[in-house]
Every structure is written in structure tokens, then in C-alpha cells.
């Protein structure tokens, strides 16, 4: 198993190098002049040139690239011009927020989608199958900013059940000592249940918004995959040997049906992590998505490069995890590794 992980990591090196080169080039060819943006609208051409040389932007591209990579090796992603902070610090502060939101959304979606998909497959053609189809279609056809705003309108404005959609914690609450960066876990570690409740209340609406959106792929994949497995010969054998439905569906069918579902989960997760900008905007969530978009608008190279690189590495790590999970589920994969 370790050997497989090692090999998989090796094969990812070229793609990471590729990502570094492409993001570097892309940020350079995108329209917009960082120096002009920071000098402000009233700045003189002289001032702009000065800022440009201060930022090293007057150097030829290869030179810029070498200095970028040199810094990168030292773990320095550069400094964000908009926030004035090192990009690593910014990302470290914001990534847990995105991760917490995405994970919560995904877990919520799984909790609904997996049973729904299984039931829809087992009782194919019944009302629950139709319900599954309606829920999935509705979820995916509503844009997240719309669902988000709707939820805020109903649960905050009309009913007043949830707190104001302003970030991860109430402004008056104090953050727990940072361990994982995930507030729900950190508050529990600090035994600060008051703050835990607060963080949970803040999290629930954006997480539901994400969950509704990601219900569709997970439900549909679970259903399709379960249907295929339920028609398999070994399920017939299991039935013919008198195993209970629970055993047939749980142990025999579901574990086999898990493989494509796990792949889908990985894809949905990585998609959500980078693409939940809209949700972050609606709920004023201090995540990496909104950070990257702001940087992009400001032609702020360093954060964009840092963001893309982080996402690429996360994606690689996620795929590795999925591969390992595959090996746990399916002994045949273990052999090939």
C-alpha cells in the first residue's frame, strides 16, 4: 500500500510542474496591469514605472519565473498586493474556512443522497424513485446564489431562525485557539460549546446550499451504480442463499456499488472547493474562492498563482485518497497497485 502511494506521488510531480508553469504564464498574459492598478487612477506614468520595477515586473519573463520558482521552493508564494499579507498566510487562514464549508456541505449531501439513491434503486419505479429524480433535478437546476439567497430570506429574514449571514462566527464571539482551522473541531477541542453552537449556526445555511447543489450527481450515480450491481449474478446468488435484504443490499450490493460513487464524491468535492465562490460571497464566508476572485479582479498575480497551485495539490492529494480508498474497497485494485 505504501509503495502504491509512493508511486502515485511520483507520477503527480510532472503535473504539478505543469501547473506551476501554466499558472505563471497565464497570469502574465491576462490583460490588466498590476502596477497601474496599485498606483491608483491619479498616478503619473513615472510612478507606475517605479512601482513596476519595485515589483520586479519590468524583468524579462524567464527571470521573473526563476525568481518565482526560487521563492516557491522556500515555501514563499509571494505577497498579496491587495491584502499586504504573504499569500501563504492568507491561504492558511482562508483554506480551512472553505474546507469546513465544503466538507459540511458534502457530508450533508451524502447523508441525504446515498440513502435516497439506494432506496430509489431498490424500489425502482416507486414514488421514492420519482422523488429522487425530482430532488436531484431541482437541486442541480437552481443556481447556488439563488438557493443561498432564498435560504437566507426564509430562515434569517422571515423566520429569524438563523444568525445573520456574515461569515463564520458572530462578530462578538471569540475564535477558539487554532488547531485544525476548522471551527467546529477547534471549538470542541477547546470545550467551548457556546462558540461551537455559534459556528454551527453560521455554517448550516451555506452548507445546505452546497448540499442541495451536489445532491444530484451523488444521488444519480448511487442509483445507477446500485441498479447495475443489483442486476449482477452475485446478488442473485446472495438472494438464492436466503440472505436478508439488509445483508444483500448493504454488504453485497452497496459495497460493490461504492466504487463509482467514491469517484463522483472526489470530483464533487474538488469542484465545490474551488467553485463555491458564489456561496462564499452570499454568506460573506472568508474562503479561498472569494479571495482568488478578488485577486483576479485586481490583477494580483501572487494570490492567483498560490490559489491555483494549492488547488492543484489538493486535487492530487484527493485523487490519491480516492485511489487508496479504492484499494480498501476493492481487493482487485490492490493487486494492480
Amino acid at each position, binding site marked *: 500500500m505504501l*509503495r502504491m502511494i*509512493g*508511486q502515485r506521488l*511520483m507520477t503527480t510531480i510532472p503535473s504539478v510542474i505543469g501547473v506551476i508553469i501554466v499558472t505563471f504564464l497565464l497570469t502574465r498574459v491576462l490583460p490588466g496591469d498590476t502596477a497601474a492598478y496599485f498606483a491608483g487612477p491619479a498616478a503619473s506614468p513615472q510612478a507606475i514605472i517605479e512601482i513596476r520595477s519595485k515589483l520586479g515586473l519590468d524583468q524579462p519573463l524567464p527571470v521573473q519565473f526563476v525568481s518565482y520558482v526560487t521563492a516557491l521552493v522556500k515555501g514563499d508564494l509571494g505577497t498579496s498586493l491587495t491584502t499586504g499579507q504573504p499569500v501563504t498566510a492568507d491561504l492558511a487562514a482562508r483554506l480551512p474556512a472553505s474546507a469546513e464549508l465544503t466538507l459540511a456541505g458534502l457530508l450533508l449531501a451524502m447523508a441525504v443522497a446515498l440513502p435516497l439513491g439506494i432506496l430509489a434503486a431498490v424500489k*425502482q419505479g416507486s414514488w421514492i424513485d420519482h422523488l429522487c429524480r425530482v430532488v436531484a433535478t431541482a437541486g442541480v437546476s437552481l443556481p447556488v446564489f439563488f438557493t443561498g439567497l432564498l435560504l437566507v430570506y426564509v430562515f434569517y429574514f422571515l423566520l429569524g431562525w438563523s444568525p445573520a449571514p456574515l461569515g463564520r462566527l458572530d462578530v462578538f464571539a471569540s475564535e477558539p485557539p487554532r488547531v485544525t482551522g476548522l471551527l467546529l473541531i477547534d471549538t470542541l477541542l477547546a470545550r467551548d460549546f457556546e462558540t461551537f453552537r455559534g459556528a454551527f449556526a453560521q455554517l448550516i445555511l451555506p452548507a445546505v446550499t452546497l448540499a442541495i447543489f451536489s445532491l444530484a450527481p451523488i444521488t444519480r450515480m448511487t442509483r445507477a451504480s446500485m441498479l447495475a450491481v443489483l442486476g*449482477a*449474478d*452475485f446478488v*442473485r*446468488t*446472495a*438472494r*438464492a*442463499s*436466503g*440472505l*436478508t435484504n439488509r*445483508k444483500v443490499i448493504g*454488504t*453485497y450490493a452497496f*459495497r*460493490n456499488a461504492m466504487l463509482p460513487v467514491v469517484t463522483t464524491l472526489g470530483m464533487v468535492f474538488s469542484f465545490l472547493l474551488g467553485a463555491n465562490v458564489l456561496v462564499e460571497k452570499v454568506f460573506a464566508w472568508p474562503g479561498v474562492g472569494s479571495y482568488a476572485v478578488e485577486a483576479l479582479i485586481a490583477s494580483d498575480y501572487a494570490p492567483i498563482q498560490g490559489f491555483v497551485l494549492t488547488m492543484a495539490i489538493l486535487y492530487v492529494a484527493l485523487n490519491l485518497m480516492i485511489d487508496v480508498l479504492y484499494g480498501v*474497497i*476493492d*481487493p*482487485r485494485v490492490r*493487486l494492480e497497485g
Partner: protein
Amino acid sequence: MTAVPLLEIRNLTVEFATRRGAVQAVKSIDVSVAKGETVAIVGESGSGKSVTSYAVVRILDRAGRVAEGTISFSGVDLVAADEAQMRDLRGREISMIFQNPRAALNPIRKVGKQIEDVLLQHVQATRATAKEKAVEALTKVKIARPEERYDAYPFELSGGMCQRVVIALALACQPQLLIADEPTTGLDVTTQKAVMDLIVELTRERGMSTILITHDLGLAAAYCDKVVVMEKGKVVETALASEIFRNPQHPYTRRLMQATPRLGTSLADLLLDAPQTVPAEARTAVTEPKPAAEAGPLMQVENLVKEYPRAATGALLAKLMGKAEPEKPAFRAVDGISFSIARGETLGLVGESGCGKSTTSMMVTRLIDPSGGKIIFDGTDIGAIPAKQFAASPHRRRIQMVFQDPTDSLNPRFTAERAIADPIMRMGAVKGRDALRARCEDLARLVGLPVELIDRFPHQLSGGQKARVGIARAIALDPDLVILDEPTAALDVSVQAVVLNLLEELKGRLGMSYLFVSHDLNVVRLLCDRVIVMKTGSIVEEGTAEEVLGDPKAEYTRELLTAIPHPLL
């Protein structure tokens, strides 16, 4: 025989709901099985034999239901029984063994665990004793090193071994009735014999009743007391095994027996009333017979070798760390074989799965490259032309192939005409739509495919018709050598009889040579002039069909021959 049968099926009708309304798959059949009796249900595909057994165990799929009739099993009405009652019966009182044993086992669960599941379900073992009992069940089916196999996954076991596990699973709870649904289809003859002997031994030992569902009359005769013949959902004949083969009553039974290849028959004997395989109008030869044969064999294969490298595990990492392991010797699928095919000859290539016969046929067809040796075809070493370029070589036209599965080897989106026209459009001299159409129609007539069917898609054709399309496609370019890779293995015996006769007739008329790859020695005996027997990549015996199959010299050939169940003793 006891007065009260163990299983009594009365007036059973099974319906399937389809888009075009209810279809009766089984129509008012009566079958009874006494205690300790072995009953065969014999029939061709679509006869309803499997549906009957599924109805007994009540594992019909959603669309199917028992419309009428009763099934009683030691006094319990199985049609009326509730689901919980059925669940207790399944596996404990009535067990099933299925075709395709590897698929019948959960691919990602250890086989021992799967046996345990059944034992625990029927309270035949506690968690503490389950493992011990599962190993015991594996021992009973004569699996070597059962403690080790307990931890094996199905993909780590051979087909025969998987079937033993399925049998262990079925017999773990000592049921009274075993239903074996084509338990040995797809297994090699020697494995088939071992598996059937095992089933018979274990069921006799325990005084169990057995229902054997099969399309193979030989198997039914060799292993059963009573035979029930089914045709299109109806039971047409029920008789003692010893009676039915000596004196079949129903015409269908007679036809079925006639079509089964066996000792002392000729190809034409397989067809009861010998309908003409090729309609008269097509007999005015569409294709000119080949010019008189030149001297020398058509194909000469010398010292042919195919090696596959062993899967290199972790080679990349090892190399990077500077710890490259010593290279494992490559696996030799074909180990230096030589043979020749004369003009107009049919050469049989026989052996069990894994013996290298398919690899050999693929190399000869030039679909894969040999690792060594020569394939001299009509004076040219075509083995030297890489397989990737062979499609563009003029020799491609002269060597064609008929594949094993008539369904899978046709493009589902091509009509029969398009499938037949495909090689002509690529390599043939026929130009223009009308000429092409005319040629396809000629070919269809030649292989006995009704011309009005050639605009149909494969799923609209029967198995036999699809086989004819495959043959028409292979002969479309007027080849000199046709490689037939188990062309009838997926067909019912009556269809097989017709197709074999067609092949024989076409060979004579078109002046072709055949390389006939098969595991069915009875078919080989009928069709082939000479036979090669292969085992683990080498030729163990070679000679005329009569010599090899009548008076085998090699131990292995004898083993193969004795493993065939004979229906008419």
C-alpha cells in the same frame, strides 16, 4: 421412489410483463422431483428452463410473476409462502448453483466470508464457529489448502475453483434440494467432469434431490435419473434418462438428439430432415472456384512463439531507487509450435482454456505479433508484417475470421448489410451502391440468410442469423483461409448443426481452408480433416481427426476424450 415427491410443480405458468403486454415464459408445466432423485431439465435457449427454477426459489426479477399453478416443497406451498418463509427455505432447504461461477460470487468479499454469511443467516454456525465451518465446507468440495482459500477473493481462483466455492456455498446448510443451472457451461471438459462428479458425489452422499438445468443432452444422460425436455415454455416429454435416449417420443426431443454431435455420426446426420442450408437459387455459384491448387501447403507455421512480459510491479520506483529487481522470465503463451494447413483442408486446433489456442489463432490471423517464428502464407512470411500494418496488406483479404460470439462480434449500430459490406468497402473491388447491395444479397443467399433480413440490426436477428451474418462477412472478400474461433460455442445445438453444415458446404464451394479452433471435440471430429491438440503452449498430439480422436496417443488427449459425457450409450 417415494410416493410423495419432495418438489411438485403443478400447472405452473410464469408471466413476464413487457411493453407489449404479458408474455408467458413457462406455460402450464408439471414437474416432480422425488427425494434423492436427480432430474434434468433440458432445452434450448428460451425454453423456460431457467425461469422454472427461478420460480421455485422465487427469485424471478421484478417483471416476472407466477400467474397460475402451485409449487409445493415438502408440503409447503412456495407460491403462497411469505418472503420471510422463503428466505428461510432458500439456502437451507433449496440451494442453487449458477452458470458463470466467477460472476456468481461477490468479487470484493473473501470466499470464506461469503460461505460464513450463509451459515450465519441460517443459524448453522455461531460467530465463533463460522470460520471453522466455512473451512470445513471448502474441504468437502475438495479444495486444496482450504484454510488459505478461505481468504481468497474470487478473482484469485480459477473458474473450476470458483464453481467449487459456489457448490460449497450451496451445500453449506445441508439443503434437501439442489438446483444447478448450467453449472458447467463455459468450463473446460475436464473441469466439467470434475465439477459434475463432485456434485453427484456430494448429493448422493446426503440423499439430496437435484435438478440439473442444461442444454447438453450428454450431461443430462450421464448424470440424471429422469429427463424433462422443455420447448418454448412447455414440457414436451418427461421420461427416465435410460428410456428417453433410446426411445425419444416427441419430435423435438428427437431433433435435439439428432443435432447433438456424437460418435459415429456425420455432419449431415445432425439435421433430421436435412433442410437445404443453401437455397437452390444461390447454388449457381456467386464466386468462381479458385484455380487449381498450386503445390505446397497454404500456410506453414514454423516454431511460432508468443511471449508476454510478466507484470512488473513497482518497477519504476525500484529503478529510481536503484534497486531494479532481476527481470522475471516472460510468460510463453505459445511455445514454439509448428504446423501446416493444406489447401482445402480443415485443421482443428483443440485444447482447454489457457492452452494458447486463441493466441495462436490471433497470430495466424495477424491480429497480434508473434515473438518469434515464421508464418508463411502462400510463399510469403506474413509473420514479418507487423499486425498494425497487416490491415493494409493485400494478404488481409485472403485471411479472414469468424468470431466466437455472434452477437458481440457485430457492431450493434450496423445493419446486417452494412456489417457484410464492411470488408468489401475497405478492400473489395465492388464499386457503387447498387453493386455493393447486390453483392451483399448474394452473400446473404450464400449463407442462407433470408435477403429480407439484411436491413435488420443485430438485436433484431436470432443467434443463428447473427452467426450467418458473421460468416457472410468473413467470406465477403473471397478469402483463402478462414479462422473459425469457436464459431458455434454460443449457439443452441440445433442451430449449431445447421451452421456447421453450412460451413462445410461453403468450404467446398468456395475452395477455402479452415483453421477451426474449438474445445468441443465432438464438433472437431465432424468438421476437421486433421487435428492439433495443444496444452500449455505446446502441441501434444497431431494427426488426422480419426487417428487423434479415435486412437489418441497422448495421455492428455485421452483425458480430454474420456471427460466428454456421452448421451447414447
